[in-house]
């Protein structure tokens, strides 16, 4: 594109090679569309592959059945219940801590070194690979606190994985609340906490709740930290949070997908379909909660 710029010594012309320059633009736009086409194709191939391989195995017996060494008789019920319990416990842990941390950082924290340290630390934690959290969970929850490789240890570990994401999303939501909202509450004589609880939090609730639900969806699909803390792969009883082995859907998928036999690949794909449906439901829930909570908000 040397013709496009007027370099010293050459005569600048008004429309140097405009046709060719526009042509380059069209080619580039074509490349952008091609990139999107590749992504769409990859996504379709991925989903189609899972559905084609997995759908024949997806029957009521698979959903409600216990695992078996034989793929034709196996089921994912303990893993499904494990995943749902896990998501609920993760949500229950993340909800108070995530909102509390976000409220402190967005509403209370003075602008000093400690605050900046807390903020930097949270964004750094968001970048730590989840498998490292697994090692932390193994050392602290499983060994130090002596909980063992139980569902609660897994949930606590996953809660730590998603906390930075929840805190960052909640801070964004709190910062989007207009300042007038706070001043209005103070004008009515509210204390700082009354202001936060009665005025700011309800206004930020749609954003915060969406963040938490989407983070729970992420936790449902996460497997690496659970492999490290020692989730079992063959569990024939329903998990109890504080005792006994547990398994979850992504662990089941991992276990089956490692085996080359077509039947095991089939049940792995079927379990993936169950995970994707769960994640879809949570995304839908996030949309509904968001719409409901923002009904009364107007600014």
């Amino acid at each position, binding site marked *: *594109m040397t013709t496009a710029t007027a370099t010293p010594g050459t005569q600048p012309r008004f429309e140097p090679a405009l046709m060719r320059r526009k042509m380059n633009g069209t080619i580039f736009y074509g490349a952008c569309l091609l990139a999107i086409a590749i*992504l769409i194709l990859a996504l379709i191939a*991925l989903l189609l592959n899972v559905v084609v391989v997995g759908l024949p195995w997806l029957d009521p017996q698979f959903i409600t059945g216990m695992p078996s060494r034989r793929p034709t008789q196996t089921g994912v019920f303990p893993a499904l219940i494990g995943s749902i319990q896990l998501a609920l416990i993760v949500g229950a842990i993340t909800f108070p801590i995530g909102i509390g941390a976000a409220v402190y950082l967005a509403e209370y924290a*003075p602008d000093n070194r400690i605050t900046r340290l807390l903020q930097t630390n949270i964004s750094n934690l968001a*970048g730590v690979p989840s498998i490292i959290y697994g090692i932390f969970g193994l050392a602290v929850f499983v060994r130090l606190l002596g909980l063992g490789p139980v569902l609660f240890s897994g949930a606590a570990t996953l809660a730590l994985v998603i906390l930075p994401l929840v805190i960052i999303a909640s801070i964004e939501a709190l910062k989007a609340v207009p300042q007038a909202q706070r001043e209005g509450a103070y004008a009515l004589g509210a204390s700082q906490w009354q202001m936060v609880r009665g005025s700011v939090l309800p206004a930020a609730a749609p954003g915060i709740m969406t963040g938490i639900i989407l983070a729970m969806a992420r936790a449902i699909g996460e497997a690496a930290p659970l492999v490290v803390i020692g989730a079992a792969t063959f569990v024939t009883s329903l998990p109890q949070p504080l005792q006994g082995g547990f398994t979850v859907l992504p662990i089941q998928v991992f276990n089956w*997908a490692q085996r080359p036999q077509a039947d095991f690949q089939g049940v792995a794909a079927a379990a993936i379909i169950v995970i994707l449906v769960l994640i879809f439901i949570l995304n839908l829930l996030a949309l509904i909660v968001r719409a409901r909570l923002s009904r009364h908000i107007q600014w």
Partner: protein
Amino acid sequence: MAAQQIQLTRRRPWSERIIELLLFAAAALGILTTIGIVVILVVQTLQFFQIVNPIDFLTGTVWSASIQPYKFGVLALVSGTLLVAIIAMLIGTPLGLLSAILLSEYSSNRVRNVVKPVLETIAGIPTIVLGFFAINFLSPEILQPLFGVGLFSALAGGIVVGILVTPLIASISEDAMRAVPRGLREGAYAMGATKFEVVRKVVLPAAVSGVMASIILAMSRAVGETMAVVLAVGTFPQFSFNPLESVQTMTAFIVQIVQGETSQGSVQFLSLFAVAMVLFVMTFALNIVSAWFVRRYRTAY
């Protein structure tokens, strides 16, 4: 912060102080997590170094944790990790950047309504699903006929991780491009530049720190990615940069050790922590550099 400017004349009651303390505790929990991670990794890595010479560990290129003679040369795992991450970046960077340009510069509503949901869906897919896709479809149906690779290859892992990091690159880059002031674009148009020239010579150079930040952060994600890689790349640690061969990444080794029957005090189990330490330091360094670039583009305009 802003609320602090409003002065209260009455002394704050004790209940208010307790609440603030609780909120502070929630925010400070992350510090404990960080300290915990660092202490665990350092203590166990030092124990490992009492058995294996740290210099042999950091400079050795042969890794054999389960077959005698035991060798712990971490470069074999680091090379596998970097190989997968580099392939991922070669795929994720053009896809993510072009999507970002489409979203930020060319976005008609019609294009946006397709591109955004596609990227969000990819971002929401659990990584284990991408691993399954790699060994169930990508490797046997596409890569094997094309390149004659085995079921496990760095290439297969790199491709799925590349797809995985595309939404991340796209969203941060789009952010950076949107932060470029309109005036810059309009100035270029006034000089007679075409749309493509504006994108290439004005928007991209102006957004370069954000684009760099997104690529480095994606690299960090790729280095730390576990489940997509474990299934796809195999369990054969070797110091090789041939994408068609089976390798082992640091994350995949950690999974192999915790899945196996390794006893907890053994040198194999301790090596897990040393590998995790290398992984932690690598991703941490990448995150720091990425954050530095983000700060640069946020303050630029």
